[in-house]
């Protein structure tokens, strides 16, 4: 994977379309977490638009790279990306959070092609991804990689650091963690509640290859992800992001961890995302 042929227009389009879908989904269902979706959207677009080796028409292809959305509350943006990539019909998005429908409010794997693991309780995804990465290392040749997206608040969970210790100690290099570091957790600013800094140094001390990147710069994210996953030790992308990225009244606001847009707010958000 080289950055020279990275499909910048396609990634930008995927991110934009997914954000528009997610806006409609959370507006329709009065769901939370649109801010968390938007901080992650560009990274997901890079993954699904360029980085991951996947076959949407064959979602269980054994040679595929795996992606786990450990911050399962950002499910809406993942579903939107998967639908846009053809894993399942786009019409399913209309039934997000619907009764007896497959797309639950937190990432749900049951009956949803492309979602590898059901998540929603923070601190689980990195361990599962580590187990997958170890299990896939026996695969002949260029074995699949496992990408796990964490939230910054999620890194308060001790289990994250249990997994980080083991992955580093065993040099599981096909494991890539991506921290969506938007600096806001559930009840306030990360720096005020549970400061993670020096964050990169913590991961490095645990034996990880650390890459810091602007999580909204598609070229930078693709370059970093191209470097990760085969450096002799596990890699972590510390992706500096903005909660609610791309909608002026949501950006860097705790409120948009919870609120869903009103009709007027939806119109404005659509306009800003589309422009």
């Amino acid at each position: 994977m080289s950055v020279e042929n990275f499909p910048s227009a396609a990634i930008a389009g995927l991110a934009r379309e997914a954000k528009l879908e997610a806006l409609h989904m959370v507006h329709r269902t009065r769901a939370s977490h649109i801010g968390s979706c938007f901080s992650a959207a560009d990274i997901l677009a890079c993954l699904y638009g360029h980085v991951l080796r996947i076959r949407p028409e064959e979602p269980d292809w054994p040679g595929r790279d795996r992606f786990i959305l450990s911050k399962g509350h950002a499910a809406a943006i993942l579903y939107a990306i998967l639908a846009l990539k053809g894993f399942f019909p786009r019409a399913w998005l209309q039934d997000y959070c619907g009764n007896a429908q497959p797309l639950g409010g937190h990432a749900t794997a049951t009956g949803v092609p492309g979602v590898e693991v059901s998540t929603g309780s923070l601190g689980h995804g990195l361990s599962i991804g580590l187990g997958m990465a170890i299990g896939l290392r026996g695969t002949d040749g260029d074995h699949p990689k496992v990408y796990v997206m964490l939230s910054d608040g999620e890194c308060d969970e001790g289990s994250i650091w249990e997994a980080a210790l083991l992955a580093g100690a065993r040099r599981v290099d096909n494991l890539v963690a991506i921290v969506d570091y938007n600096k806001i957790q559930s009840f306030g600013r990360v720096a005020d509640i549970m400061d993670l800094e020096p964050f990169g140094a913590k991961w490095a001390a645990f034996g990880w290859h650390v890459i810091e990147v602007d999580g909204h710069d598609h070229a930078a994210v693709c370059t970093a992800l191209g470097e990760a996953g085969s450096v002799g030790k596990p890699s972590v992308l510390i992706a500096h992001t903005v909660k609610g990225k791309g909608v002026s009244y949501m950006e860097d606001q705790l409120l948009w961890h919870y609120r869903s847009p009103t009709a007027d707010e939806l119109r404005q958000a659509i306009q800003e995302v589309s422009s």
Partner: protein
Amino acid sequence: MRTAFLSRLVELAEQDERIHLLTGDLGFSVLEPFRDRFPDRYINVGVAEQNMIGVAAGLALTGKKVFTYSIVNFAVTRPLEQIRVDVCYHNLDVTVVAVGGGVPYGTQGYTHHGSEDVAFTRVLPNMAVMVPCDSHEAAWATTRLYQRQGPSYLRLGRGGEPTIHGAPQPDVSGPGWFEFGGTGRVAVLANGPILGECLKAAATLATHGIGVRVVSVPAVSPLPAEPLLSLARACDRLVVVEEHSRIGGLGSAVAEIVSEHPGLPPVKRLGLDSAKIKIIGDQRFLWQANGIDAAGITTAVLSWVAAAPT
């Protein structure tokens, strides 16, 4: 029991390279044969049980059959949410193996008493729960759970327990219900090593003219309902004895089924008393303190029969 489990697991692993064993840094003088024979399928994850279960789930998602190993509370209670979500919700082929079920580590204090684990696991979706009474049942249960292909909990003793069954149990398709004979209108159901106390109590009760049928029920979940109902219809009293809290274990499982069928006899549950958790003592002392040694069981049955003759 620990050694019987491990020996059977090594036999199975010789035939099935999907089998992996994870430990939370426990198993000294037990797990070495697996570690040395299959180093690529053995991971000591360190003292980090939440991660152990998550890693097990991830391995299972790549097609492995995973066994995890620790002492009861570190195997089950510490990573209960990982077992609930990562393993049971995804219905993965992970067997949680715990040693120290009940109070074999009684002198070590409540942190090491395995007294609520069956309740915690029995309620989880897709989960099979097995509590063998001796090495023969432990080997049987290992194969049974290996064949089952889903979330499982195998609760073992500490090691060195007396052998109760006269021979290995070859029928690994059976439900987990072993009758020890006896005739009479009182049935004693039990699992785990405490079964030996039940057999001693049955012999004593016979001298008092009370016939007792003793059944080992390693399969707490799914509980073999048909043999239970047949037995209940042939008896006037059911006594359940377990080295576990009286709440939520085998006694509760039996009572749940029996209560849904009219006309069946009453159920008396004997087990560990949550009011006595601060008592320190060896296993036999704690059995006695909780009234689940042979003398305690005998007394309980005699009192019950005297208070409510049929």
